[in-house]
């Protein structure tokens, strides 16, 4: 036998061999044992919730002119200087109703290029989230999640474009319940594995820190586009995060995350600072007027999505482009890939179609919405890999409604609500 480790591994692999019967046997056991039981969503739900806030956090790397009338920091809430009680930190941060902070993200490529983004954020349980993003001190993007209006609006200042998403009531409530990313970061640090770093000093303040190498920190730090980028394409496996807390008050003063470029790719460094915990937010911070010279890029109504109407619009757009087929997989990343491939093909054939951003964005929201339905245990199923617009009686997409029936979108994009037994008949086709 060769001494080369690769050869020895190959030899071991051959000895282990393949068991073709494993998958059918496992699936038969699952079918017998579990039938149609739904999953326990558990902690996976949190990941979905982070992603779901497309709708609200999609602009995490956008920024905010922070307008404060005053700051009330709960010094009295944290007694003693004998050392930080991490459980108390967690409790204190979880109770915060409003916080402002600055997130600075730097991405460095091996070629020495660097992209710096600064995001100034205001998060308020009562009002929503505002984020202003700057590149090289130039405001490039503003995102507002407005709880009272039920809207998520993104302004692209350079292009003078905006997107507007009408949120559902449930989503607004979710934002109100869980609007604070620093809270999520602290939670990830202190409920996961960490090591204590001991005492240090930041800007003259005595601090105590913890360090974590848990990759779960990444979406907590970078929820929104960057988080989705990580989660959707490549989740790094080499990260170091640090949380520093003021010894006297128990409030976090600095959080850092370093993501190594393990494949010779880019390194990312994130620093979150300038916290104003339990800040009082001026109402003006959330008063949004879209400038008159801005053009709409996309308008999405999640209520209409829920009713299936915008889902149908988006799928019809795709079918028109593709000549009657639907996206093979209903995920945002794959949709972009498939639409891109179609445009490339059309372009190569001499047609030069304009990309309809409104529809493309609606499609991506549709995909995200379907994923959220899965998270809610509403049993969505999508058959775009086999069903085309010619399949008038076949189920293209379906999900369960609160009343126990199923909303079905057929191959010809009709919408119908049917019983479970009727759905079984339809899906047997």
């Amino acid at each position, binding site marked *: 036998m060769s001494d080369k480790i*690769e050869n020895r591994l190959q030899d071991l692999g051959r*000895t282990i061999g393949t*068991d073709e019967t494993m998958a059918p046997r*496992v699936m038969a056991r699952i079918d017998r044992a579990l039938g149609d039981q739904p999953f326990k969503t*558990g902690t996976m739900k949190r990941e979905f919730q982070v992603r779901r806030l497309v709708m609200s956090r999609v602009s995490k790397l956008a920024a905010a002119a922070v307008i404060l009338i005053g700051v009330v920091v709960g010094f009295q809430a944290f007694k003693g200087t004998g050392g930080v009680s991490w459980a108390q930190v967690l409790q204190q941060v979880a109770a915060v109703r409003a916080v402002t902070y600055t997130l600075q993200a730097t991405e460095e490529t091996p070629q020495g290029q660097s992209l710096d983004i600064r995001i100034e954020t205001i998060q308020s349980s009562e009002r929503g989230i505002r984020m202003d993003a700057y590149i090289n001190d130039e405001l490039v993007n503003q995102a507002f999640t407005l709880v009272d209006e039920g809207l998520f609006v993104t302004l692209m200042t350079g292009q003078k474009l905006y997107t507007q998403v009408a949120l559902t009531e449930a989503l607004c409530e979710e934002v109100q319940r869980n609007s604070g990313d620093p809270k999520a970061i602290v939670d990830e640090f202190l409920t996961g594995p960490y090591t204590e770093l001991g005492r240090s000093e930041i800007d003259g303040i005595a601090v105590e820190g913890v360090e974590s190498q848990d990759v779960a920190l990444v979406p907590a730090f970078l929820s929104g586009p960057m988080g989705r980028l990580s*989660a959707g394409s490549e989740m790094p496996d080499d990260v170091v995060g640090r949380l520093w807390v003021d010894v006297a008050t128990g409030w976090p003063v600095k959080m850092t995350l370093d993501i190594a470029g393990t*494949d010779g790719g880019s390194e990312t460094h994130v620093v979150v600072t300038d916290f104003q915990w339990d800040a009082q937010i001026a109402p003006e911070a959330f008063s949004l007027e879209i400038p008159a010279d801005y053009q709409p890029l996309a308008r999405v109504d999640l209520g209409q999505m829920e009713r299936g109407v915008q889902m149908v619009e988006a799928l019809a757009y795709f079918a028109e482009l593709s000549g009657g087929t639907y996206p093979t997989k209903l*995920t945002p990343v794959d949709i*972009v890939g498939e639409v891109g491939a179609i445009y490339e093909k059309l372009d190569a054939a001499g047609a030069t179609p304009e990309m309809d951003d409104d529809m493309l964005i609606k499609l991506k929201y549709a995909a995200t919405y379907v*994923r959220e339905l899965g998270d809610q245990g509403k049993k969505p199923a999508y058959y775009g890999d086999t069903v085309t617009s010619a399949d008038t009686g076949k189920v293209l997409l379906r999900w369960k409604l609160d009343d126990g029936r199923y909303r079905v979108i057929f191959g010809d994009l009709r919408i119908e609500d049917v019983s479970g037994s009727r759905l079984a008949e339809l899906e047997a086709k």
Partner: protein
Amino acid sequence: MPVLALKTHSVRSLPVLQSDGELVHAVLGGDRKAFALLVRRYEQSVRAAAMSVLRDTHLAQDAAQDAFVKAYEKLGSLRRAGAFGPWLLKIARRCALDMAGDRREAALPDDDIAAARPAGLLDEDKERLLAAVLELRESERQVVTLRYFGGYSVKEIADIAGRSVGTVTKQLSRAHRRLRVLLKEA
């Protein structure tokens, strides 16, 4: 569109394979067939993990089945969908240990477990190698088992694990180095 999202808003071709994360999401979304794909993807790795504990092909098959069923039941509690592979291998090891414990409780001495090993299935050298593979870091263990037990190419592993080809290549290379060290130490 948010700033960094521009990076994803580009024309790209579809990946060859669905990643573990995508399949997990599909299963959670009600697509049970997606789980069968995960079983096919990891059955060799899971059996290998079980075999390293039980040293018996048939018992390892049973433990592997238990592991997959348990993984399906607990899929909703998986913290990060993309971490399915390493998570599954931990479950497999736990199932194998439980099975070994059950056998001991049933008054079957360890010798019987060893005796049940079909001759020539895993010689001492292979057992040592397998034990070393299972000592690797999670990410390295995943790429090694997929590469050598599952027979996937580096590109396919990259798709499966949601990493870049460069990362997988480096992880394989690191794993080879680490295995050499582990085997020398043994």
